[in-house]
């Protein structure tokens, strides 16, 4: 076994799993160039749907809303969810089990129920439905995902490093920024990425929290199903995937230069 590189069988296996991840995505990209509006079979090549996409102000607006909601809800959920993970994994306090249980509720409860309960709650307190209510709901279902993943990272965390840092004269804050956070960072990052992913694609809870003019992309696409999910949606996904991929590749290159 080589020291740096994983074993060959592991690399082959991982390659196959990535293939599994990207096979539907390739199909989806190919079909964004399909001339057939119903997008059931391949008919011919066209760039028409990209033009349609750029001229579709409704879809653009929905995309903007989706990104804003996903970004804000991920940020808030990651910060307070990480704090909660630290609290649950390291401290004992009154109401511990209760809070731990509450944190599992959004994972457990069917989306429809959570959606309707939030809708009823917003209606009860006369809170106008819109982007704000969607964001509030997304934060609520994102927190548990962040907390769980960060807790898994914190589990078995060697406290002696922190103690050593403090012994060297660093205060809690410095210790947290310089020692604790970098150590749990992979957990925080994983949690944040899961939260972002969930938020981008949520339909049910978003549906019930949405108000006039606050449409997100999943809402738009889901209601298109009955007529035809046109290749326009594929085109949008294609652009989005390619953009992120380019950013990722650039970051890889930049990092390589730095090291």
């Amino acid at each position: 076994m080589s020291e740096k590189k994983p074993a060959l069988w592991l690399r082959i296996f991982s390659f196959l799993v990535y293939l599994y991840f990207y096979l539907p995505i390739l199909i989806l990209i190919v079909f964004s160039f399909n001339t057939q509006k119903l997008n059931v079979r391949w008919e011919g090549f066209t760039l028409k749907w990209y033009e349609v996409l750029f001229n579709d102000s409704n879809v653009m607006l929905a995309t903007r809303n989706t990104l804003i909601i996903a970004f804000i809800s991920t940020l808030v959920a990651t910060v307070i969810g990480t704090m909660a993970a630290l609290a649950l994994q390291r401290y004992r306090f009154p109401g511990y089990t209760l809070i731990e249980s509450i944190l599992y509720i959004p994972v457990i409860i069917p989306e429809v129920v959570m959606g309707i309960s939030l809708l009823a709650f917003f209606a009860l307190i006369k809170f106008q439905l819109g982007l704000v209510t969607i964001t509030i709901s997304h934060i609520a279902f994102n927190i548990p995902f962040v907390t769980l993943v960060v807790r898994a990272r914190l589990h078995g965390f060697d406290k002696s490093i922190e103690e050593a840092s403090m012994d060297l004269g660093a205060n809690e804050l410095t210790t947290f920024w310089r020692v604790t956070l970098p150590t749990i960072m992979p957990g925080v990052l994983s949690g944040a990425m899961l939260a972002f992913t969930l938020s981008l694609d949520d339909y049910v809870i978003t549906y019930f929290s949405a108000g006039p003019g606050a449409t997100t992309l999943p809402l738009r696409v889901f209601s298109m199903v009955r007529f035809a999910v046109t290749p326009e949606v594929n085109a949008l996904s294609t652009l989005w995937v390619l953009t992120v991929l380019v950013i990722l590749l650039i970051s890889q290159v930049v990092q390589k230069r730095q090291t």
Partner: protein
Amino acid sequence: MNKYKLFALGLTLSILLAACGGGGPASDNVLNLYAWSEYVPQQLLDNFTEQTGIEVNYDTYSSNEELMAKLQAGASGYDVVIPSDYTVTIMINQGLLEPLDKTQISNFSNIFDTLTGLSYDPQNDYTVPWQWGTSCLVVDTGKVTRPITKWADLWDPEFEGKVVLLDDEREVLGMVLSVLGYDKNSTDPQQLEEAKQKLLELMPNVKLFDSDSPKTALLAGEVWLGQTWNGEAALAHMENPDIQYIIPEEGCTVWYDNLAIPKDAPHYNAAMQFINFVLDPQESILITYEFPYSNPNRAALELLQTEDPQAYDAYMNFPATNPSADDMSRLKMIQDVGDATALWDRIWTEVKGGE
């Protein structure tokens, strides 16, 4: 931590870019329309804004029940909604709709007389017809060679694994009840039990239940025949002319979608203006050009006949958009079954979750 920073930077950038894309209409002069998606032509909305200066927010739902759930929970902020027939009954009974100010609907007389005063709203106090259609039998005649005329043909063993049904207990159990010669809105436990047994016999033939897009399985050749909406059938027919829409001997469902104003709509007057506006034949015709449903607007169809005879003929000669008088007599609306809903739900659950 550079990679994270770079990623965050990229993300922020893409959001800023997206944020420049445009802002929602902010004025008070708005109309919040809540409807099925792909159901209201953008051109019509643009014309409305041009004529009245009222901006339209067009949000979408994908089932009547989703609409009701949203309105039932409390003020939603919407001004115009498009519920179907049985939904109207429920919404009126629950006090979810605002009565229409009929003096403001001068174009109401454009509607076919036969399509006004329907049972769910006998005086049209709350609703005005928008579009209507049916959900009947669809057959791929390229695959099925023998003529299909009735629902009972679905039970033929030669169609094992070749049938698609709507994933909708009211449509499916209603169809089975009509095959048995019963009322499709039956609340009789005995009849429903019989329907359950009959449906279980059909299960080996059922490849899938799909309410969202039954045409997809049909066009892909996964199934040969089944149950679908007229709009779905029309779209499938355009792709593959072998796909035919049949109004079976036992009859099938007719549905009417209606414009209505929810209780406490924030922009009542704008809503009334909109309702009258869409009944204008010049505007109504836009719907028929874009979407393959049946238009209740007599004046609009007359206009289509003079302006575009070819489109008019296509509309009149296709059973999915224009059923014959004979066919019409066999169509029946779905009605709310009230307290028997629990029984229907249980039977449906038993059929699907049986073993």
